[in-house]
């Protein structure tokens, strides 16, 4: 079965797609930092951030609807955390809105990053940025095997449904529980087989890497202008509010 739900659209081509993954990752990080550090009473700044990320989304030519849909996934979690704020604090409503807006802006930039960067090159970028090797490996295994696991879950579900899954709610829960258990054991055993396959090819617990990335002039332009825009947005927020 084919899936591409993680980095869908990442293999199309645009100014943003062509940027070095490291540039994009650092820009996203800076953007999120700027957004989260902006105090709640500097409302206008958020419009500037929004304009900034919108321009990038348009430049990336990723369908806007896709990005919007993806960005809403985070909302239930944000609401769950922030829903009580209006009742507990003075000025709570403003605070609540700020939290929601900040979360949404941050997730917008992350969705954009994922939609314009292939996971393998993002991982390479993270490694170059000195993210510990173990973390990079965990992420890369996750990316490689999440699809295999999804397939496995689908096959298990088909097998279950073919045997007429029904009965009481309690019985259904028990069935799902044992499916989860089976899945865990299978994954664990697969982990051992993968490790043996790695050992067979000379793996010794640490891996050397190769360099495949290159900053281009476009990255410099983008970095400078994006940094400047963020800086101006911050300044605008502080004096404008």
């Amino acid at each position, binding site marked *: 079965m*084919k*899936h591409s739900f993680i980095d869908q659209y990442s293999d199309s081509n645009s100014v943003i797609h062509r940027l070095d993954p490291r540039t994009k990752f650092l820009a996203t990080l800076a953007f999120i930092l700027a957004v989260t550090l902006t105090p709640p009473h500097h409302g206008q700044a958020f419009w500037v951030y929004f304009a900034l990320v919108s321009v990038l989304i348009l430049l990336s030519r990723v369908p806007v609807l896709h990005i919007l849909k993806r960005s809403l996934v985070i909302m239930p979690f944000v609401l769950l955390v922030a829903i009580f704020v209006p009742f507990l604090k003075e000025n709570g409503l403003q605070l609540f809105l700020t939290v929601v807006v900040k979360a949404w802006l941050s997730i917008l930039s992350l969705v954009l990053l994922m939609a314009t960067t292939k*996971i*393998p090159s993002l*991982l390479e970028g993270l490694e170059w940025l000195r993210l510990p090797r173990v973390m990079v490996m965990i992420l*890369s*295994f996750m*990316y*490689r*095997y999440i*699809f*295999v696991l999804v397939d496995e879950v689908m096959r298990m579900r088909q097998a279950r449904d073919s045997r007429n899954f029904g009965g009481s709610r309690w019985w259904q829960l028990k069935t799902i529980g044992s499916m989860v258990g089976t899945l865990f054991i299978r994954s664990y055993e*697969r982990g051992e*087989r*993968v490790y*043996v*396959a*790695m*050992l*067979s*090819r*000379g*793996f*010794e617990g640490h*891996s*050397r*890497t*190769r*360099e495949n990335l290159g900053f281009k002039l476009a990255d410099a332009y983008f970095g400078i202008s994006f940094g400047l825009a963020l800086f101006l947005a911050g300044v605008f927020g502080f004096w404008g509010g």
Partner: protein
Amino acid sequence: MNEVIKIENLSFIYPDGQSALSDVSLTIHLGERVALVGPNGAGKTTLLLHLNGILPSNGQVKVFGSAVMDGNLKEVRRRVGLVFQNPDDQLFSPTVFDDVAFGPINLGYSEAEVRQSVAQALRWVGMTGFEKRSPHHLSLGEKKRIAIATVLSMSPEILVLDEPTANLDPRSKWALISLLKRSTMTLIIACHDLELVRAVCQRVVIIDQGRIIAEGSTENILGDMPLLQAHGLAPDGSKTA
């Protein structure tokens, strides 16, 4: 003749007390193509895991004249390339290139050497141009070829394959068989696909319940119906293969 692998009186008991191999002795010569044939659970895979030191032996396994020990594991694993049955275990990297490059990188090849060995290995299995693909998006036949390439990139002298044709459709299977026939390496193939054995191997070793039952030329062994029937390799009472 030139002995490349010599196994003498090898027995192996898994930690849970299950006996997997008992008193196995086997010699493989340079350039030979040998099939290890036996029913499921006969101990074929366990035997293969001894050939490159994944499972420990006390000097009963000799590769190129020297016993497999902790000190020479790396060398042994380069010279004996082991291809596992399930390509989803063998291919664990985000891209095909990364996977084929894994062995050479672990062996400490230079950047240029890595690229060259990857290109060569992919050309040999007819998969040039798949470097940037994700293993998950390949067909099983393609995955099998890539899995072989991941080992070939380390330029092994002995190629060991576990069930190379399992689950393949006839077209992919015969493509793989013609690939194997082209090789000049020493081949050791564990399987119970007698068509594959007949097409590729000159010598057959029959294993059942952890013991070597018979060995001889492909013609003699595959012509011996009662022998095949006794070990679940041919239908009972049938006179045709």
